[in-house]
């Protein structure tokens, strides 16, 4: 078995194991797992509408995953993607609605605003970490709550006391008649292309640029990087900035694509926290994140079909997702198992 094959087999086996345990849980709870999984499958791929919605759901997951992964690659744990995403969402919705501009300016402007807002939210923990060595995990957790309340207050302010921002202008919208029609009126929008473009951007920054070289170096060894003439502070701040910008764009997926506005948030969207799982499922690598986000997005969206098509509670899918992540984490033991199997085969 080649290394590459094993790399592909490990997540595949994790998924199968997750589904298997999920099936056992369903059996014991008196549900029909086959019907359940058929419903799940149809929920994801059943028709063009489902496919459209699934892809739409994947876009913000990709960006949230990129945000978490990017910080991870520089040795930082950004639990604040949730908050960064929310301020990005708000910024995009605000810029999208408050200005009247031609599309080729308006849409990039709104996207940029989202990225900038997210970056700003990442900047604060970045600066505190770089200058005062304050642990970024605490600050980002706190910044999430601050984002939640600040965004809600801002929505109220800019909307003149309402609970939602005004609808964005069509010139700022990521919505696409074409994609929507293609998928039978789903809310699929151009955001997926933005997300995929950002995957390329992350790959490019890390693998091709000088900045990427520095970011990775600082992530692995601050002392040696300083010795090599890099500014550790600058790179920590930059990393949080870029990470926040990805997260902010994730918010723009909602603000300019899925919803076209922002309503008062009763709690966290969860996308940011799921981003941690997405990033780690994808081993913090750009391509891996597409895989992680697709898995996550499809299972989450497809799950909606299980209660009505098979009468199975939604929560069972959450159990399955969690189990898959758990098994991916245990990849080492799966790898060992595969290698043993391989040896036996070779021996024969």
């Amino acid at each position, binding site marked *: 078995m080649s290394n590459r094959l094993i790399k592909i087999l490990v997540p595949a086996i994790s998924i199968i194991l997750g589904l298997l345990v999920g099936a056992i849980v369903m059996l014991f709870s008196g549900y029909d797992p086959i019907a359940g999984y*058929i*419903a799940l499958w*149809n929920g994801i791929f*059943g*028709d063009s*509408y489902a496919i459209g*919605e699934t892809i739409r*759901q994947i876009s913000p997951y990709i960006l949230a995953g990129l945000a978490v992964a990017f910080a991870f690659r520089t040795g930082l744990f950004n639990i604040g993607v949730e908050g960064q995403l929310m301020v990005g969402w708000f910024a995009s919705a605000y810029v999208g609605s408050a200005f009247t501009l031609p599309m080729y300016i308006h849409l990039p402007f709104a996207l940029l605003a989202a990225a900038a807002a997210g970056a700003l939210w990442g900047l604060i923990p970045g600066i505190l970490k770089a200058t005062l060595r304050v642990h970024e995990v605490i600050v980002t957790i706190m910044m999430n709550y601050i984002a939640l*309340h600040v965004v*809600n207050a801002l929505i*109220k302010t800019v909307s003149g*006391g*309402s*609970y939602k921002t005004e*609808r964005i202008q069509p010139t700022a919208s990521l919505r696409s008649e074409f994609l929507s029609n293609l998928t039978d*009126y*789903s*809310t699929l929008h151009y955001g997926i292309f933005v997300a995929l473009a950002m995957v390329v951007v992350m790959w490019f920054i890390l693998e091709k640029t000088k900045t990427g070289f520095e970011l990775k170096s600082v992530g692995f060894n601050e002392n040696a990087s300083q010795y090599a003439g890099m500014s550790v502070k600058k790179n920590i701040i930059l990393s949080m900035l870029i990470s926040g910008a990805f997260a902010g764009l994730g918010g723009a997926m*909602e603000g300019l694509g*899925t*919803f*076209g*506005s922002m*309503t*008062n948030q*009763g*709690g966290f*969207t*969860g996308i940011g926290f799921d981003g941690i799982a997405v990033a780690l499922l994808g081993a913090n690598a750009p391509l891996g994140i597409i895989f992680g986000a697709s898995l996550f997005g499809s299972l*989450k*969206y497809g799950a*909606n*079909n299980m*209660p*009505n*098509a098979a009468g199975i509670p*939604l929560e069972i899918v959450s159990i399955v997702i969690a189990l898959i992540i758990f098994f991916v984490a245990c990849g080492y033991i799966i790898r060992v198992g595969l290698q043993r199997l391989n040896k036996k085969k070779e021996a024969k």
Partner: protein
Amino acid sequence: ACGTDKEKTTSKGGNESEFSLAMVTDVGGIDDKSFNQSAWKGIQDFGKDNGLSEGDGGYAYLQSKGEADYTSNLNALTRRNFDLVFGVGFLMEEAINTIAEQKPETNYAIIDGVVEQPNVASILFKEQEGAYLAGVAAALMTKSNKIGFVGGMEIPVIERFEAGFVAGVAAVNPDIKVDVKYTGAFDKAELGKAEAGRMYSSGVDIIFHAAGGTGNGVFTEAKERKAADKDAYVWVIGVDSDQYDEGQVGDDNITMTSMLKRVDVAVQDIAKLAKEGKFPGGETKVYGLQDNGVKLADSRGAIPDDVMKQVEEYAKKIADGEIKVPEFAK
């Protein structure tokens, strides 16, 4: 909807007389002890009354896990050919607006929101009227002349509760100050509890909450005080559904009453109209005291009859239009 769509469409085409309805919940789910639950109850009751069964062609619901699910859930139900689809909660305005445009042949109704489309009926409630009565009751029952209001997030619906409640208290006794506090969240029981603790400590004896899960904390605080001291005079007024069960402390109960929002009544009403072919598309129906849309729950004796009588007088005046309850908080 696994490949059943097409055959359904055909079977449906030949069977016009059947009437089916469904709803999309918001994140609360059909057992949220609040308006989702109430809406589902309305749909179930209508189904029973009309001999429908749960499932396609009868009645059904889909639960949303987040805002992102609204559109797809509405869409799914539309594809399953329900004649009337309810969206529960103002957050669904946008989604209903979009789908109503895409699917003009289906009828939709939105609860707590307004959507201006010919195939959408908008359902609003005069929460302020119910809250007004709660305020009257509280003002009549208070011994300390201090009353509290704990809100969740500062959104228009909750502000209507506040406005009505404060006006109701003032109508009885303008000198009573209502301690109004928002916690900024519907899901932080510890904040509701701490806020209630502060209010009760400062002499407040009755708190009206409109704070969802945060309100659980208000109940908890009141119950603890009651448990510690059987003679403590602490009360909570519940919201949306009858929260009597929440208030049980041993043999005592600290739920004074609850302000009911009869989403079930409204749902049945609209469904009936639709079935009779009189669907109020493009209209906004506002359910107030008069329409049985809001009212106070049975206090199970917590409010003495003489007080109840006075409350009913106010209710009558509101219903008659003699009292205009303000919609916005100052």
